[in-house]
């Protein structure tokens, strides 16, 4: 490997010579020869320097056999790889191969294989090792409360769930800025909210509410420390709850566009329906307001109302369209 490096240096020297002045060239030459001197004064007997005699020079050091040869079959693997280290071909007794098979060859062997070294390995986490670790860590754990044996009970007694992550890194610094992030999750059904409060809460939190699972999740990472983020999350929860119960003066100005759900009363659809029916002269003659009220109480109109509400709120699906169709037919007697 050293000869390769040496050649690289020499080639660098050669390519750069033309670009530099004479002084630089000489410097580079001396550097290159210094390299030469260093590499040949060592133990390696380089074959292309056969000019020197073999008398007085130490013989080339043998690479030696890897220690996998000496490993007994029943050895304790957890002691060979106790912690996460890079792949050592000398210590792993498996005939693994990795790499691209060049020119219809085979993937290169593990000895000197950088590909195997680059990837993360889990040789230190074999099932036996994990068992041992679990046994060793048991004294640090306390018992799970026996009363909390189902998930439902856990949710009911401890509705708020807080999650944060710790990171371990073997580097100059053990700190990781991602460790400050705190996630707080709670089910909205556990809150004491009336209709207005619930709608206001949902408007306030926006994206953080998941409709399917009814879970409000608040993620805080604006403070530098986890403790601060956790307290901020708790504060946010408190504030949301209290704010959603308050009724502000300007909330009276809520328009139809602000409404979360579609309501049929006083809507264009109701007006259109009533106009159509009146035109069809279905009902008897009478005053306008009474006629309208009568019409509204008719069953077909109610069905129509349901189907329209359903369409608008839930979106268009097979069943809702069918329902609408049926309702329209009934109303128009078609």
């Amino acid at each position, binding site marked *: *490997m050293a000869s390769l490096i040496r050649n690289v240096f020499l080639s660098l020297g050669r390519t750069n010579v033309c670009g530099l002045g004479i002084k630089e060239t000489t410097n580079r030459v001396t550097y290159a020869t210094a390299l030469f001197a260093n590499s040949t004064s060592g133990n390696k007997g380089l074959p292309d320097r056969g000019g020197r005699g073999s008398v007085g020079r130490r013989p080339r*050091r043998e690479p*030696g056999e890897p*220690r996998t040869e*000496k*490993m*007994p079959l029943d*050895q*304790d693997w*957890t*002691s*060979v790889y*106790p912690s*996460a*280290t*890079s792949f*050592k071909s*000398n*210590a792993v007794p498996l005939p693994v191969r990795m790499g691209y098979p060049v020119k219809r060859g085979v993937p290169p062997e593990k000895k*000197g294989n950088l590909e195997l*070294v680059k990837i*993360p390995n889990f040789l230190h986490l074999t099932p036996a*090792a994990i068992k041992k*670790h679990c*046994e*060793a860590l048991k*004294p*640090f754990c*306390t*018992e799970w*409360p*026996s*009363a*909390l044996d189902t998930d439902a*009970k*856990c949710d*009911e*007694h*401890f*509705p708020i*769930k*807080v*999650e*944060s*992550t*710790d*990171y371990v*890194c*073997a*580097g*100059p610094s053990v*700190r990781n800025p991602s460790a400050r992030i705190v*996630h707080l999750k709670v089910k909205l*059904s*556990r*809150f*004491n909210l009336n209709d207005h409060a619930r709608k206001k809460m949902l408007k306030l939190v926006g994206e953080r509410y998941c409709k399917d699972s009814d879970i409000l999740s608040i993620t805080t990472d604006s403070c530098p420390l986890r403790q601060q983020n956790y307290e901020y999350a708790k504060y946010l*929860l*408190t504030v949301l709850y*209290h704010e959603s119960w308050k009724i502000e003066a300007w909330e009276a100005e809520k328009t139809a566009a602000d409404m979360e759900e579609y309501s049929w009363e006083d809507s264009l659809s109701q007006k259109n329906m009533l106009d159509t029916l009146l035109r069809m002269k279905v009902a008897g003659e009478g005053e306008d307001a009474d006629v309208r009220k009568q019409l509204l109480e008719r069953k077909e109109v109610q069905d129509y109302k349901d189907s329209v509400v359903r369409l608008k709120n839930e979106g268009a699906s097979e069943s809702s369209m069918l329902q609408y169709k049926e309702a329209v037919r009934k109303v128009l007697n078609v």
Partner: protein
Amino acid sequence: MAAPCRHVGHHIKRNGSFLRINLDQLFASRGFRWTSALQQQGAEVHKESKEPIVIPRKKSWSSEAVLEALASTVHRDPTAYPYQFQDDPYLSPRTSAEFKLFSLSQESGRAAAKYFINNNPKFFTKDFAEPHIPCLMPESVALRLEEVSEEALKERITLRKVSAAVEMYDQLLQAGTSVSMETTQELLDLICLYCDKNPVQEGEPEVEDAEEAGEETKRRKHKGRRAADHLRTSWKENNNAERIFNLLPEKDSRCYSALIRGMVKHGAYSKAFSLYTDLLNNRLSADVHTFNALISAVPDIRDKFNERWDLITELLNQMNEQKVHPNLLTFNSVLKALRRCGFLAKTYAPQTLNEMKALGIAPSLATYDHILAVFYKSGSSGPNNTDIIQDMLTELEGTSFTCQDPHDVFFFSSAMRICLDSKDLELGYKVHSLVEVGDNWRLLGDSYQQSVFYGRFFSLLCMMEHIDVVLKWYSRIIPSLYYPNPQGMRDLLQALDTDGRLDLLPTIWKDIKTLGHDNKVDLVEELLSLMAREEHSPEVQESFAACALDVKSVFDGRSSMEWSTSSLSHVTTLLLRANKLQQAWDMLLLFKAKNRVPSEVLLNNFLSVCQSSGAPKRAVELVQLAAAFCLPATPVLAKTALAEFQLTDEQRSILSEFEAAPEKETE
């Protein structure tokens, strides 16, 4: 191919924790704004969960407790090299010399790096480590204060610059300022500890103390940086310590103590005792360290055994009078001195032990080592005397020790020596199991002591154990803990021979080569003779022949190794047994080249092999060779050759010549 030095960081995620909300608040004050946030589930809750939810109290542990718990699941890897080396077969040490060289070079590299960091602190100001690691930051080694003051003196004392401190003190005295008693005492401590010389800084050139006499530096250069260096430093007459001491207006016991201990440490024993009498005359009391030093110096000032013991008892009585409590080191020094008191030791050592027990001082390994030395003189005790060490080991079983006395490290090797001398295998196993308890392996000492211990253990095993067990231990401790010397290899060969496992000899030869013992001619010859002694099965013979060829190449490769007749004939025999005729013939030619004479048996052997493989030409050449050596067996050889081989006429004529040759000579 070396393992990368940077660890790849990886992340372990831990699950979040459930937050507790106090249940009591939930049911109690409903009107309270914070708790009304949670809905009452109503009666269903109460019906289902009648038992109260008991949240256990969270346990707390120290910051390293988890790591220590995980580390306890891991044991020693028997094939691994010592952790400080690169885990690569090319880069790890194979012989004990390499081990020493590599570890020393690592240490010297580290010391050089430390030197650079400390001497150029302005380049190493940025602190990457979070949390802060103080030992990686530059230490202050340069003096900052230059003016003549007590602070400057204190600084020099803290930085351990002996000559500069003495200079500063003298300057202070000349200037007339008085130095506080405490600083003077610290100065005296410093001078006495280093015997008035600057401590040798690691990595610094030795020209630092150019003011000192040139011969001193030369002396130090000769001695080199060995651990025994400080023992050779001698206390000079009227050096700075004594001078400063004599100049002191009032001398208290701490000054005396410093002087006495310094004198004992650096070899001025009689002066130490005279100073001690001075101290007594001034009606001062010495402290326990002074007494320890004096007791350890007793054998050097008295020659007769009973005189020594009398002096020790006198000192102990004075200690009692001065109400100074003895500590572990006191008793250890008593026992160490007793070692040099001959026959008296056997009487008084147990009494000392009883005293220790009465005072409630737990003995350390050094105590036990001294007792073993008292009762087991090397090479003289018989096998019936192992009671003491048996009792000792039974008592110490499973105990984990820490190093309390510098002499602790000698216990294990002397215990193993006793086991080896008395050839007691069980005792040896007991000692070894004591080493494996907890952290006791640290008390095996430096690499030399460790090699002595394991060497003795291995010899004991080879002598007394069955070969399978020996081989199991061999793979366990060699070469990760111990590089055997030639004697150790010889013991192993002996064990193989005794149990008839000579088929393992080629593997042992490979190990011998790796250990670098293939230049020890007698070891190699012993190996060859063991291989060549008997006939074995064909596969074994093949392996032996390959091994023999390997040995030959080693011999040829080294100019310092000389072939002897026996080794040559062994190699030839082995080659012949595997029917390697050509190589065997080369060996015979080698005989000629090295001026050695092959034996008759060998030649007969060769001839029979020639016959079985059908090489008549070879046979003729053989007879010619025999004739060249003027061997008396030549005519016999010639006759057999003529009789048994299919020869051409030319060959017959040559052979018949040889048949007749000796007759000519006798005439």
